């Protein structure tokens, strides 16, 4: 996707990210970068480290080593000598890194509209009127304007996920991180969420998407990164990675992955 910002350097950079849980090394030094308006897909089997990688980008998991830069500024660390930012400093940076979760995580005690306006009002300090107008616009965009005053519990999974996308957009983030946004949905609800995401991708949002949806990756992503055992097994355009896997290892893994794609009926196997 051509953009006028492409020569301004990458927007989001991950450099040598490492993370271990107990004695298990989940990320073994991952580096990649995302340009403005680019959509990057993180693929891989369950346990390959893709969700952990995504969560390291906004420091929901603190990596053991490595750096993340957003628009040239390091995320989660600052000062000389470099040390971890306190909660307040990190919160400030997270304003520009929205996230959409596998299980939606809408706040049950707030209406759909309040879920969307909560961040802008409470965190950005914008006026209620302004935020509500913007929220209605966003809800309209995800096709849920008429649900604005409902509580999340009244919505289907697909609707909840679309609200959570609107909630992410309301912060006007620089990058949106998607953590398996359709994995918790009933098969018939996957399409409506992917439709919204495809629309976002085409309208120039910068996105990093962890997904099992191969068809979505093919259509929406400018680049896909295939993770295996905490390392990058393949990277490139969807066509390069998915149709002409560079190595035998990648091909095996990828075919395997397709064979285990949730689309083929084991969507609920892990739940």
């Amino acid at each position, binding site marked *: 996707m051509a953009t006028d910002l492409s020569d301004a350097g990458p927007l989001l950079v991950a450099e040598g990210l490492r993370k271990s849980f107990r004695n298990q090394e989940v990320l073994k030094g991952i580096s990649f970068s995302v340009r403005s308006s680019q959509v990057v897909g993180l693929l891989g089997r369950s346990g390959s480290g893709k969700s952990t990688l995504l969560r390291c980008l906004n420091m929901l998991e603190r990596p053991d080593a490595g750096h993340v830069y957003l628009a040239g500024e390091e995320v989660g660390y600052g000062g000389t000598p470099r040390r971890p930012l306190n909660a307040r400093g990190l*919160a400030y940076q997270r304003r520009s890194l929205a996230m959409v979760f596998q299980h939606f995580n809408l*706040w049950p005690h707030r209406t759909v509209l309040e879920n969307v306006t*909560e961040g802008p009002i409470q*965190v950005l300090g914008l006026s209620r009127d302004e935020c509500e107008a913007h929220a209605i616009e966003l809800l309209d965009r995800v096709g849920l304007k008429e649900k604005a005053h409902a509580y999340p*519990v009244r919505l289907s999974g697909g609707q909840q996920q679309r609200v*959570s996308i609107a909630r*992410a957009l309301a912060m006007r983030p620089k990058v949106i991180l998607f953590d398996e946004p359709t994995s918790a949905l009933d098969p018939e609800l996957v399409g409506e969420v992917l439709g919204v995401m495809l629309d976002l991708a085409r309208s120039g949002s910068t996105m990093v998407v962890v997904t099992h949806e191969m068809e979505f990756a093919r259509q929406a992503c400018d680049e896909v990164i295939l993770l295996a055992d905490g390392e990058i097994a393949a990277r490139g355009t969807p066509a390069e990675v998915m149709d002409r896997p560079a190595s035998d290892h990648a091909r095996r893994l990828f075919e395997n992955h397709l064979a285990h794609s949730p689309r083929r009926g084991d969507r609920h196997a892990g739940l």
Partner: protein
Amino acid sequence: MQAYEWEFSILWQYRELLFNAVLTTFRILGLSVSLGILAGLILAPLRMSDKLFLRAPATAIIEVVRSIPPLVLVVWAYYCLPILTGLTLSAYWTCVIALAMYTGVFFAEIFRAGLQAVDHGLVEAGRSVGMPPWKIFTRITGPLAFLRILPPFTSQCIMAVKNSVLGSYIAVGEVLYEAQRLSTATFRPLELLTAVALFFVATILPLTLVTGTLEKKVLQRYFRR
């Protein structure tokens, strides 16, 4: 057995004294429950702290106070606290503070359970829109914990209402103490003690009914499909 002649006019006759006793009971309640909530709000986060030097004393206080019968706590505070601290409080304030301590440790455990029951994903959603920890507490975990703890919170308040009569043991002029005093003076224990029992039913029953309805509404509105 001879039929007993009820004489409830005795209540009217001593209405002023009894009214003051009721007021004292409500004052003890209001103060001990408010102070108890305050104690709970302080103890709960300490108890949950990942720093041992905060967690250990809070846990110790909670576990110790929790295992003392409330009557023992009141009596102990009345006789021993002045000797140990040199501080002499009135029976009324001793009662308030002892009951606040007792209620407070239970509130602390209830608040902790409520906060821990909040789905961590909702906290992460707060973090991901850039909420600092205090905002996450006031906007997400606090309100959700409150909705979740409504039933145990009410039960504990009901216990506090019942425990307020323990003040009578150290001569605090609340309903039971005054009714007992009056019944020995007038030889009308049946009327007076029945009135005390009915007073508690009349106080607690509405509390149960209101929170029962509230609870249903909360579930219906936010949580139940």
